[in-house]
């Protein structure tokens, strides 16, 4: 089997240039913000936001790869390499996490996580009971364990997949490739179980514990829905830009392939709405002060605007954009919805994280808020581009690729 797509790589510079410009702009803006010591507090929160934003993209793509293997999906074979080029960046994400750990540990005059204030914690009877979990050492150990798991599996999935490429035009290796695919399928199941735990606990550790008193048992699932939506959006947008440049073979962009992608995007938007509303309604119904406070703050004053915008952007607008069967088959519509969903994910994280800066903080969109996001997004795109320019754009050695080419729903 001679595949011409094996040679398809992004030679085009625009993405690389855009990524570097984005990162530089972000770095300059962040530098301006950091030049004033009074901004350290807001900056650490918006850096956390930016970190979670790129983390969701990377970890979501890793989940997409595992989901592809565990279900033995056919339609997504050609799109898997795009997910892998994001998922290969777990190491980068770990380095980007280090500033979060630094902000948590180093600053004494304000706290990114208020549980770092041990005096306050010990005085409060409920919070004192949470100290064995919410302390810096255990926090760091957990984070390290999460990253270790993600790193090992992302390395395994990406490396195995790239190794399979060697068989293009070499039929002797096909039997070996079948074995590799089977191995990936075997390990994807256990990974998804680990993924469920690690992502839930990462969400609890990194975002939910911003308010150590508040809790929601839906939180892990809520974070998961955002993770998957972000991953599907970045995959769709990458696919769209590749298609626009004519770098992606048309036989993998048939209606049946695109419908599968669009339907997932649509389904997870509804899933998000379901999870978000369930979380809200139960807390609203029970009306227990320690739980309600979290929503009360977000349902009054200018935060209410953000809440309504979130519901519209994350669910209502994408729902009607994607409702039609033809919209789900149209790559332009999928890309448009992906942009909406990425904006939605950012607003979602903003809504989750920024109210905790302090009680007086009002929603605003200044350089302190967007700077870190631009920097980290630029960095991630740079590394994604680097991976793509080194490897084939399509998992050419996958034994299922031929079936993907003639895929019908």
């Amino acid at each position, binding site marked *: 089997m001679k595949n011409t797509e094996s040679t398809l790589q992004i030679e085009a510079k625009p993405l690389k240039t855009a990524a570097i410009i984005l990162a530089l702009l972000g770095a300059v803006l962040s530098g301006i913000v950091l030049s004033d010591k009074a901004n350290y507090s807001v900056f650490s929160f918006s850096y956390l936001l930016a970190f979670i934003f790129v983390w969701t993209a990377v970890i979501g793509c890793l989940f997409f790869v595992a989901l592809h293997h565990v279900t033995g999906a056919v339609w997504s074979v050609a799109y898997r390499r795009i997910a892998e080029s994001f998922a290969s960046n777990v190491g980068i994400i770990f380095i980007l996490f280090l500033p979060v750990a630094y902000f948590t540990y180093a600053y004494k005059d304000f706290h990114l996580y208020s549980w770092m204030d041990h005096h306050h914690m010990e005085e409060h009877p409920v919070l004192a009971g949470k100290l064995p979990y919410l302390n810096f050492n255990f926090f760091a150990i957990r984070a390290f364990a999460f990253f270790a798991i993600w790193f090992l599996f992302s390395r395994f999935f990406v490396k195995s997949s790239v190794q399979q490429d060697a068989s293009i035009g070499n039929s002797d290796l096909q039997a070996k490739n079948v074995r590799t695919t089977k191995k990936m399928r075997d390990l994807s199941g256990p990974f998804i179980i680990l993924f469920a735990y690690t992502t839930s606990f990462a969400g609890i550790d990194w975002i939910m514990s911003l308010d150590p008193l508040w809790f929601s048992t839906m939180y892990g699932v809520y974070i998961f829905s955002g993770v998957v939506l972000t991953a599907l959006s970045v995959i769709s947008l990458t696919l769209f830009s590749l298609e626009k440049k004519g770098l992606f073979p048309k036989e993998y962009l048939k209606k*049946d392939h695109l419908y599968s992608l669009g339907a997932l995007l649509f389904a997870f938007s509804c899933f998000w709405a379901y999870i978000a*509303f369930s979380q*809200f*309604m139960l807390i609203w*119904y029970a*009306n227990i002060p320690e739980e309600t406070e979290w929503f009360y703050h977000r349902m009054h004053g200018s935060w209410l605007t953000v809440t309504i915008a979130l519901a519209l952007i994350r669910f209502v607008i994408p729902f009607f954009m994607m*409702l*039609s*069967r033809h919209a789900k088959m149209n790559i332009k519509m999928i890309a448009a919805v992906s942009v909406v969903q990425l904006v939605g994910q950012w607003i979602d994280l903003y809504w989750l994280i920024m109210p905790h800066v302090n009680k007086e903080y009002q929603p605003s969109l200044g350089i302190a808020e967007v700077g870190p996001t631009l920097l980290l997004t630029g960095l991630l795109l740079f590394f994604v581009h680097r991976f793509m320019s080194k490897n084939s754009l399509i998992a050419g050695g996958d034994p299922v690729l031929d079936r993907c080419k003639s895929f*019908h729903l």
Partner: protein
Amino acid sequence: MSNEKKLVGMVGLYDTPDELAGAAVKVRDAKYQKWDCHTPYPLHGLDDAMGLKPSPIPYITLSAGFVGISAALLLQGWMSAVDYPVRIGGKPMWSWPAFVPITFELFVLFSCVTIMGCVVLFCKLGKWHSPLHDSDIMKEVTSTRFAVVLDSEDSNFTEEKAQKLLEETGCKDIRPLHQIVDVEGGLI
């Protein structure tokens, strides 16, 4: 008792789905309007091959869904805020979060029932019989084979032309479809 036979269509039987899809394209291009395909299982891509127009069902369903949403909100709002107001848990009378689950359910219910109704209506269910069902052809297309049925009511239809068109599609098993007229003057 005279059993007069009336020609109501021509049937072409095929052994594989690909043959049928190819035939459907040819019949479509011959500008036939009244014709149909019969398969033992749903065949994806056949709607394109047949050149079927987009169905109005999605719009009808969505409208019915909105009727469901309005019905649910009016029903609950009227009951709990107007007709028999009872304050529950210190919440406002118009407590929209509590209404959402039922609103969602009625949205789904109205949509589904409408789809069911549309299917019954659009598939012309409720007829007691049809010539195709009375023939042996139905036994074959519900188990192993694939059929194109050209209706005699189509303006293009003549027995010779239909026969020729089906031959052109590579069909090896062409059968005329008859309806038995009579038994006390009516159609069976």
